């Protein structure tokens, strides 16, 4: 008898959730979501095109100044891109594509010269391949002709070579490595310090194969632009990603909260922040060559908040906004909306504290050092805030009846009730 009542309880809850007008509203919320995604990828594309211009200038006229300008363009390009990470989880179109663009962590010895531990390991024999220095090599028993560095070589042959995810040949972090080089300062101050002469011509070339290094950098940057063009189009009117979230209001809202929760908890709080801290490894940080991790984490957090509030501020200052998830939650449960907003603000503030300290000169990799109590506290406060907001996101799932509740007696094993996978 009790069970019948439980089933009825679930039904009664479902009955209070989306009626016709709510469904209409949900469609508008999903329009805003797709608009923000499109704006974020268009901004990422514009910034990647700037980066490409800066990279071309570096290759054309290598100097300390053009090298520095390319690095600055890379840092700027991360600002809009990281705010789009929240679209990854929950949208298969984004998740299937993301590995080409932002794969991390990477065994950079695959690409270019490295020192110390970063070479081959038991887990990845290709970690010391160094394709820039080797125009021919053997990969899984196959002879590879890499005399020309082509998009196909990077994308089809090297990227995730041998099925190992750490073999990252394309995307922001491959470009980052080519602009900064390894950060050999450990937990001490300083980022990677690749000399501009790694791109110099003739006698001035350092570390050899400067022409191949330049070609690799050019191809990787071209691919980044191409990939972002593709993704921006997916979110435009008539694009597949926009159509996918608009096809079914409940599934679309579920994609929104899945993205928010998975990025908050498993990815950012867990994999990128807490694990790196507990490993005390100075290179176990998201932007390890450039020491830009504080920004990558901060803009991830801001992106999660953008999705809930239905608001994005573009790189030119324009505001993209509309009906939001917050509106839906406020209607269903005003107290929960207040809790959700407060927790999003708290996590963004905690991430801002890390950014503030890093910009004042105490870099994220220094915070990871064994026994750095202040660094540990800063990072763990952000981790806790992200975990707290995940609990609120779960309450949002309940409040909007997005859990995909199936009724007692359902035998369908093909339709498992766990939606967050």
């Amino acid at each position, binding site marked *: 008898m009790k*069970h019948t*009542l*439980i*089933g*009825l*309880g*679930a039904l*009664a*809850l479902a*009955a*209070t959730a989306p009626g016709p007008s709510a469904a209409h509203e949900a469609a508008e919320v999903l329009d805003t979501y797709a608009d923000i995604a499109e704006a974020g990828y268009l901004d990422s594309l514009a910034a990647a095109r700037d980066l490409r211009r800066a990279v071309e200038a570096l290759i054309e006229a290598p100097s300390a100044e053009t090298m520095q300008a390319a690095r600055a363009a890379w840092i700027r390009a991360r600002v809009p891109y990281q705010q789009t990470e929240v679209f990854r*989880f929950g949208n298969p179109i984004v998740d299937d594509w993301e590995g080409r663009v932002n794969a991390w*962590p990477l065994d950079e010895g695959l690409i270019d010269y490295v020192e110390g*531990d970063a070479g081959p*390991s*038991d*887990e990845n024999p290709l970690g010391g391949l160094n394709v820039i220095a080797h125009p021919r090599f053997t990969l*899984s028993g196959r002879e590879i002709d890499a005399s020309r560095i082509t998009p196909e070589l990077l994308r089809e042959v090297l990227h995730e070579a*041998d*099925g190992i*995810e*750490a073999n990252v040949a394309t995307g922001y972090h491959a470009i980052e490595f080519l602009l900064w080089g390894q950060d050999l300062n450990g937990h001490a101050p300083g980022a990677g310090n690749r000399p501009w002469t790694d791109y110099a011509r003739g006698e001035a070339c350092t570390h050899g194969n400067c022409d191949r290094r330049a070609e690799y950098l050019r191809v990787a940057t071209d691919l980044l632009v191409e990939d972002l063009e593709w993704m921006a189009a997916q979110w435009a009117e008539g694009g597949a990603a926009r159509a996918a979230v608009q096809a079914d209001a409940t599934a679309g809202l579920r994609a929104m909260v*899945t993205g928010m*929760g*998975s990025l*908050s*908890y*498993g*990815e950012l709080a*867990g*994999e990128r922040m*807490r*694990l790196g801290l*507990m*490993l*005390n*490894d100075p290179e176990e940080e998201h932007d390890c060559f450039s020491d830009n991790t504080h920004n990558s984490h901060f803009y991830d957090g801001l992106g999660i908040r953008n999705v809930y509030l239905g608001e994005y501020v573009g790189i030119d200052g324009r505001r993209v906004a509309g009906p939001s998830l917050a509106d839906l939650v406020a209607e269903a449960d005003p107290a929960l909306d207040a809790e959700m907003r407060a927790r999003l603000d708290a996590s963004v503030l905690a991430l801002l504290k890390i950014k503030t300290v890093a910009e004042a000169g105490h870099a994220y990799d220094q915070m990871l050092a*064994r*026994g750095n109590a202040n660094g540990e506290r800063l990072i763990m406060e952000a981790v806790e805030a992200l975990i707290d907001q*995940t*609990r609120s*996101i*779960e*309450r949002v799932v309940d409040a909007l009846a997005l*859990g*995909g*509740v*199936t*009724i*007692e007696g*359902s*035998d*369908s*094993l093909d339709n*498992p*009730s*766990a*939606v*967050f*996978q």
Partner: protein
Amino acid sequence: MRHLTAVFLLVLAALPDRAGVDRALDAHILPGFARFAVAAGALGEAARADCRASTLHAPFHAAFDAWMAVGDIRLGPSETGALSVAFWPDPRGFTRRALAGLIAARDPVARDPATFATVSIAARGLFALEMLIHDPEFARYDQGDYSCTLARAITADLAAQAQALERGWREEFAPLLRNAGSPGNATFLTPAEAMRALYTQVIASLEFTAGQRLGRPLGSFERPRPRLAEAWRSGRSLRNALLASESAHALATALADTPLPRSDAALARVREAAAAITDPAFQDITDPVARLRLEILQQAVRALKSAIEAEIGSRLGLTAGFNAQDGD
């Protein structure tokens, strides 16, 4: 009016949630952590008496067995605490590097149990000890060597962690779960939230076993990866997968208030599939027949998850929340 009805029904629905949470704590979680604390303490004692690798094998296995009953729970004190007991998977080889680094430097941190807790999790816990006492590169040390001191440090630290987890669960987190919905409980606003939090652990554990414990070594048909099996050095890969499945089933059984015939049958099939596997370390899976047997085990674990979702999840209107594996 509809809202009132929902509230009324939710109050009734809370009763089995409370009972299920109590049963999960009393029958499974708290005794599990107590047994792990005892086993980890015994391992520490053994290392104090004789820290050589061969003498530590048996108490290591006993401690690992005890851990598997509660090791996949990532909640409360275990949310962060489990990572330093069992750091795996380790795709970038941190454990080998961290151990080799301490040994090469003869790092004095191993002589001070209190500060050993500050070292990288890659050099702490069950997997660091496994490599130290089972990997030929490390295990040939003798009494008086630095590695012997290191084995003492790792086991003493593990015993301290086990005690802290047991205490944290018993004194702090179990009461929070039990009085979910009480005023002042900001963690669990309703008994249903506590129930979901525990149910999520069951589902996440089975996903981890199928996807990671079994999925990583399976790799692809063209490229199986036996070296990516969990705890293959100590030959525990199969045992861990089986114990994890049994523990998830036991936790699910405690949460439920009715018999779970389909989940019971699904667990029996997991056991059958496990019994058919010949190499407990999965190192034979380059052989297609051995590979097929491991795939069958993986399917059986996934079927167990589906059965639990159907019998508990659907019936109680539960969906799993976010788990730590969401993300890459």
